[in-house]
């Protein structure tokens, strides 16, 4: 009888609690639950809406928007640094009978650039669709790019995109079709959809691979085929750094793995009047069923060795911070607080930064460190309290980013926020992508300080690596791939030039993922 009474009350009280607080708590924490659910369920939109399954992704080095190696951007403000710098090219599978689209049959190509600037770009993708050896080996306008194409893969069609207008032309000039072009990701990405409803283009559904020459130049309405001319010196209407009239007008070219863009584009001769011959990338048209494991598994012995080295380096850094801390006597100074932070004396460091903020509430660096320290406190707190503490930490760090003006302030503010964004669980806070943006912003700041001296190459590589890790956490694997490759490229550059010491922890991450050879 007593049990029955208990059960009578228990059921009702459970429903009372659900009604009074359960439903509202669900809505308050639904964001967290949704992210946690998605991290397990991995829902995705039917790819026929968004471009079709990805057949192949090509990565192009960041910062190689210099053509043969010496081209400079025009001085016109439309040419934002990086706007012609292709970083990724994604080839999708052709889509048949897509819904909710004016183009039921289409083939989508995505191009990602370092910086925005649609109005500045003139893009050509010359495509050998059938590999039959027929087609053209010169550009649509022979004098436009100033290059020729591999005679073993003459092109059949060319995708021509200027700004957000595009057309597809056949090599024989008999066929042309307007393309659907849109930009996204703040104009850093261009999406090109080629309609395949015309029966002459049906062949794209059946071929397994295509050879493609992807050229990016500057755009001007007065140039040959819209290509911006290049001269010795930059001006508003032409690019600079071209030693010859035969210099190709291509700022960035998607080179196949066996060659480099610079080596291909620099092969002109003023004496023999030879022009450079470009070689294509081979793009699959179907995603392989069993996706090949791109990442080579690194030797476990090598990984262990790198782990030990990374451990020793970390220990040495902590020791040196501790020693430096003992030497500095100026209590209340920013330097002292910073050293306390680096030596892991969290409470003391927070008290020091609080004192600094009391007299200088708009000190961006102090705000950034304070935010990091608050976030560390959040890490030790119970889960529900941690949510509020981390939110408080972001208020400090966001303010720091807003107030930062000088390079050292920008770097401190961005890197502190980026490190916190990387460290907090993404399924709860969803900050990984924001963290990646901060790391990339810090890398850009280092690059602006660096010039061509490679002084900060280790810092830039580290920022790229961490951005890649953040993208990986946020589920953006294509973006992660871009920045892992860039970090690896910088490590190799640094090794070759011997310009800077690359930390072992950085190498370790790249080796583990197969982006760096042992």
């Amino acid at each position, binding site marked *: 009888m007593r049990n029955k009474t208990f059960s009578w009350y228990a059921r009702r009280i459970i429903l009372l609690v659900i009604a009074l607080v359960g*439903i509202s708590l669900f809505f308050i924490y639904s964001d967290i639950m949704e992210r946690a659910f998605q991290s397990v369920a991995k829902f995705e939109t039917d790819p026929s809406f968004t471009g079709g399954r990805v057949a192949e992704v090509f990565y192009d080095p960041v910062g190689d928007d210099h053509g043969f190696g010496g081209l400079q951007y025009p001085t016109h403000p439309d040419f934002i640094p990086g706007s012609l710098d292709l970083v990724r090219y994604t080839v999708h599978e052709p889509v048949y009978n897509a819904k909710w689209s004016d183009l039921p049959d289409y083939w989508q190509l995505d191009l990602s650039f370092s910086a925005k600037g649609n109005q500045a770009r003139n893009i050509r993708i010359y495509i050998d669709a059938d590999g039959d050896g027929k087609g053209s080996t010169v550009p649509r306008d022979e004098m436009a790019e100033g290059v020729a194409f591999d005679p073993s893969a003459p092109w059949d069609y060319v995708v021509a995109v200027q700004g957000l207008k595009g057309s597809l032309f056949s090599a024989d000039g008999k066929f042309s079709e307007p393309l659907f072009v849109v930009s996204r990701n703040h104009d850093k990405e261009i999406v090109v959809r080629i309609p395949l409803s015309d029966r002459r283009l049906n062949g794209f559904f059946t071929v397994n691979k295509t050879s493609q020459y992807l050229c990016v130049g500057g755009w001007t309405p007065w140039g040959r085929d819209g290509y911006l001319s290049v001269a010795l010196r930059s001006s508003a209407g032409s690019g600079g750094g071209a030693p010859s009239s035969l210099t190709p007008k291509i700022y960035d070219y998607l080179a196949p793995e066996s060659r480099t863009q610079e080596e291909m584009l620099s092969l002109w001769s003023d004496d023999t009047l030879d022009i450079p011959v470009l070689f294509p990338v081979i793009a699959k048209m179907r995603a392989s069923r069993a996706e090949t494991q791109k990442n080579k598994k690194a030797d476990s012995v090598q990984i262990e060795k790198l782990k030990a080295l990374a451990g020793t380096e970390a220990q040495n850094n902590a020791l040196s911070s501790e020693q430096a801390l003992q030497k500095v006597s100026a209590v209340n100074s920013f330097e002292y607080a910073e050293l306390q932070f680096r030596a892991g004396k969290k409470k003391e460091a927070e008290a020091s930064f609080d004192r600094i903020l009391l007299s200088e509430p708009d000190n961006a660096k102090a705000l950034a460190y304070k935010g990091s320290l608050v976030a560390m406190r959040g890490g030790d707190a119970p889960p529900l309290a941690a949510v509020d503490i981390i939110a408080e930490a972001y208020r400090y760090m966001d303010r720091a980013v807003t107030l930062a003006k000088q390079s050292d302030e920008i770097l401190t503010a961005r890197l502190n926020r980026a490190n916190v964004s990387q460290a907090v669980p993404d399924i709860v806070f969803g900050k990984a992508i924001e963290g990646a943006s901060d790391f990339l912003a810090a890398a850009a700041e280092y690059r602006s300080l660096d010039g061509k001296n490679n002084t900060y190459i280790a810092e830039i590589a580290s920022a790229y690596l961490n951005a890649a890790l953040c993208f990986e956490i946020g589920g953006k694997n294509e973006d992660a791939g871009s920045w892992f490759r860039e970090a690896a490229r910088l490590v190799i550059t640094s090794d070759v030039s011997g310009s800077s010491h690359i930390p072992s922890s950085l190498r370790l991450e790249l080796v583990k993922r197969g982006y760096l050879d042992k």
Partner: protein
Amino acid sequence: MIQTIFFSGFMAALIYFFVLAGQTQSPSAWIYAVFLLIIFVQIMRTKQISKYRRIFQSAFAVFFMISFIGILYDVRGSMAITADTTLNAENPFCNIIIPAIMIPYALTKTIIYPGPIIGNFAAVIAMLFIWFIATVTIGKGWCGWVCFYGGWEDAVSRFAKKPRLHVLSHNKDFRAFQFAFLFFIILATVAVMSSVYCEWFCPFKLVTEFAPINNIPTLIATVLFIGLFLGLVIVMPFLTRKRFQCSTLCPFGAFQSLVDRLSGYRLCIDTEKCTGCLKCATACPFCAIDQDTITGKKGRPEITCAKCGECIGVCSSKAIRFEYAFEARKKKDASSCARPEPKTRFGRTVQALLDPQNLFIFSAFTFSVVISSRFVPDAINRIFRLFSGGVL
């Protein structure tokens, strides 16, 4: 009295948290918060559940439309679904097609709708979560209390004082048609692997977003949308005083009827008190009570009941009331939904606080507050802006 104070206090806190927190400087948030609190207090105090629920739901439907369209204009410059939004999977996901996407998901592991999956305005997972929590708490009460589309019919059905068209004898047919339509939509969606309901049958395209008319099929679809909206949302509710689209053509409504078993509350008809006057059957906007329900002494409305409370208001013998689902299932004898009166004052207070009707109303109104809190203040702001010389 005690339960009115108790539940209204909690509701005031909820309204503060979801409508006012962070917006205490906004007059529109205050206006809406006061409106919500008045509606809730009136429901609890007067027990005229359906009257005040209808005022809320009708207002929500209109303000939702204003806010939603305003947001679309802000984001994409028109109500039309654009190629960009589809390509970027940015079309707001709608709860109505939840039943239709389930089998395609099981077959392809993809969502056959170009909407955001997570972290965006009306994302797929957010809507699935809301649907799930609504199903296990208020069940089909979503349709009766929260649905921002149903409010249109609720409002229009009250324009006439009496029904011009009596459809009581067809209630069963309407219910059967609704389930048949759900079955058809699911099959058709699987056959073409696209959300057929959105493309061809949704009358609410007119008050949300639609595909631009640029070919014959989209022209036919638009004619269908207009026809269905005028016919099922305006004309038929006006003539019959029923929520006609909800009762016949809404696949989500039919699906919610099927999963309503998971919810915590039911409506219960005390067959001993019931006089068989059929006022409830005539009043039910969801065609969930007919002659057979009453004469057959089933002791509960049919499964399409949306717990709107209309029947409770019109029942002169007080024979209809809310009951906990576990109690309703346990009691085979329908007449036993009558409850013993507690002997002490404390007992009466506890019973009042644990009354399933109060808990259901509180739960359903919580959904109403949360779901509407983003749209209604935004719509009021837009209207203020319009009257002060700006644009909507």
